[in-house]
């Protein structure tokens, strides 16, 4: 005796649609945009893609060029500023004092000096080819630079003043 337990096609379709919908919505859980998000941005002409470890290398001058071979001009925010401290904490993974020590050591060893500083980092990368910098989302402006990636804010980001 042949017994068939085929589910109705409509049920299958409904399940598939539901599954797709679930898969699309549940895991993604869109990251909330936060003004304290750190946006790693570069000059619009830069075509390379880099990760956070490479950004760290570039800002510590362990790496001098983009993966494509072009020169990188990292632009720092002013030492001691909220933006610089957040970049140190979230990307360089060092403190203000540790970064100063790092540059003092490298200056004596090999004349390696810290990247230049500009108060308006986003302005600096606007026309300077090969430049790379960071900015809080609150200060970010669409269309003036290319966003490489975003380092999300965390609880500590809200300490020590506004962006």
């Amino acid at each position, binding site marked *: 005796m042949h017994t068939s337990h085929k589910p109705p096609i409509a049920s299958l379709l409904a399940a598939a649609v539901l599954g797709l919908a679930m898969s699309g919505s549940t895991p993604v859980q869109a990251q909330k945009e936060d003004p304290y998000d750190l946006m790693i941005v570069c000059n619009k002409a830069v075509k390379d893609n880099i990760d956070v470890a490479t950004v760290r290398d570039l800002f510590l001058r362990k790496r*001098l060029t983009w993966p494509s071979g072009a*020169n990188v001009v990292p632009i720092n925010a002013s030492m001691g500023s909220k933006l610089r401290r957040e970049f140190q904490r979230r990307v360089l*993974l060092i403190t203000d*004092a540790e970064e*100063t020590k790092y540059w003092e050591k490298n200056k*004596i060893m090999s004349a390696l000096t810290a990247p230049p500083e500009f108060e*308006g980092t986003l*302005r600096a990368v606007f*026309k300077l080819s090969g430049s790379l910098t960071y900015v809080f989302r609150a200060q970010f402006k669409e269309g003036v630079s290319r966003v490489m990636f975003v380092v999300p804010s965390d609880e500590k980001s809200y300490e020590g003043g506004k962006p």
Partner: protein
Amino acid sequence: MRRIPSPRLWSELVKESPTEQFETNSVWSQGATTRRIRRYVEEKQRSERPNSAEMRPRRFFHKLSALGISAALATSWSAPAWSQETIDSDPQPAAPQAPSEATAAQAGDAPTLESLQKRVEELELQQEDQEMEAFEATAGEMTSFKPTFSVYGFLTVSLMRAWISKNNILYNLMHDKLSFAISNVNLYFHSRMTQSLSAMVELYFTFAPQGRESYMPYGRLDTTVTESSTLRQHVLGGVAIERAQATWQRFDFLGVTVGRFITPYGVWNVEHGATVFLPLIPPYVMANHILPNAQTGLMIHGRFFPHSGIYLDYAITAANNRSDVEASLDFSDNKALGLRLQLRYEHPKFGVSLGGYGYWGQVDIQQKEEQIDLSVPTIHISSKSRDKHTELTGALDLVVTGYGVRLQAEYARSLVTYDVHAQRIAPYFDVVFEGSYIPDHVRSDGYLMLAYELPLEKLLGDMTLTPFILLEQSIAEDANKSSNAYDYRAGLNFKPSSYWVLKLEGSMMWAPDSVYLKSKIYYVGAQAAVSF
């Protein structure tokens, strides 16, 4: 009828929304502010949305009032126009109103949702255009690389005292009284002319040869001079060129340095500055010059990135062979060659570095004699080697860091093979032992240093206090055990800031196989090293 949020919602909006802070911060934040406020109000209203069906009609008005506020705020940025015409029940806060809406309201013609949306979008576009113009105007200067030039350096002041027993040959030969000394005044001139091209000169100022002693007969050099016009006395010293190099580095994997550069071997030699390395006195591996501390020539160097956090550095050196004039001359057409390889793994909390340097050189120290024949007349200069040997040296270095601990070790071993054996010279006395020649030999130096940065962040903040111990062995000539020396050191390195270091160190040196140096030598030293 409510067209704007309630006073409670408004106060929450101002208090909670971080966008409030940005309005004064950036010229372009107001468009974003408008959007954020609108979004915030909508989200807030959604979250407070009543479930009761009878409350539904209020949703439309909430949305409308949110847009009304947004539009009004946006308008107020460019052309302040404050009006409370649309507020019918709540007298506060005074919400700004767009002129068109205000006019419409006055005329009894209530704005529709679509018209408000359109107006907000128009204002945002207008605002962004203005912001972009302002941005371009201020960003115009930063369009190209700017050359840099900087002068900096470091200096050290030391205070040292040694204790040498009377049965040691160094008694009264080596200075043992408590003395201050300016042991380093190093000045750097560095310029980055283009993104790829840089140059650096490091000058070392010294009081030497002031106080230099010589024996047989004894004499001590006094370089003090009196200026005739002012009668001021000056101690003349010297200037040594530590480094004078130009570097082209267009790619990470390829750079070229020419000039006088530091030999890329070991840890200590590369760290170079007293503000960088932990102890006070350099190890024998440097003091004995088992490898040249600096070379004059060409270095090709670069870095590869095999994996995130892993660096593979290389350097190939071709330079003058060692001699008493190697900084500017070579007595051989052959050049001393070296290869440096270093593999590093770096993590914010942990790091390992393993390096090696191989060096091959031919030393030919020539002595010249002139022969003058007055009858012709002619002059003939002849030269002959008084020391010709080949040196093949290998050096290894290891550094492991993590959780405040630093383990550092270096070892160098050199094979010296003579073609023309050099005569043995007594150190300090510069006296040649006639008939005594140095045989082919192997020499080696190695040290191990263990340091621990004490976890005193709560007490010292960013200052660091690092005790260390260092054990060292030096074999100057394997066939002559009397030259074997051992050094045991312990010290403390205190770094109050990035710019200065205070060091305290005690040491015991011992040459157990030497008849003349058998008794131990002790010294205690303190140093302040400052970079500027």
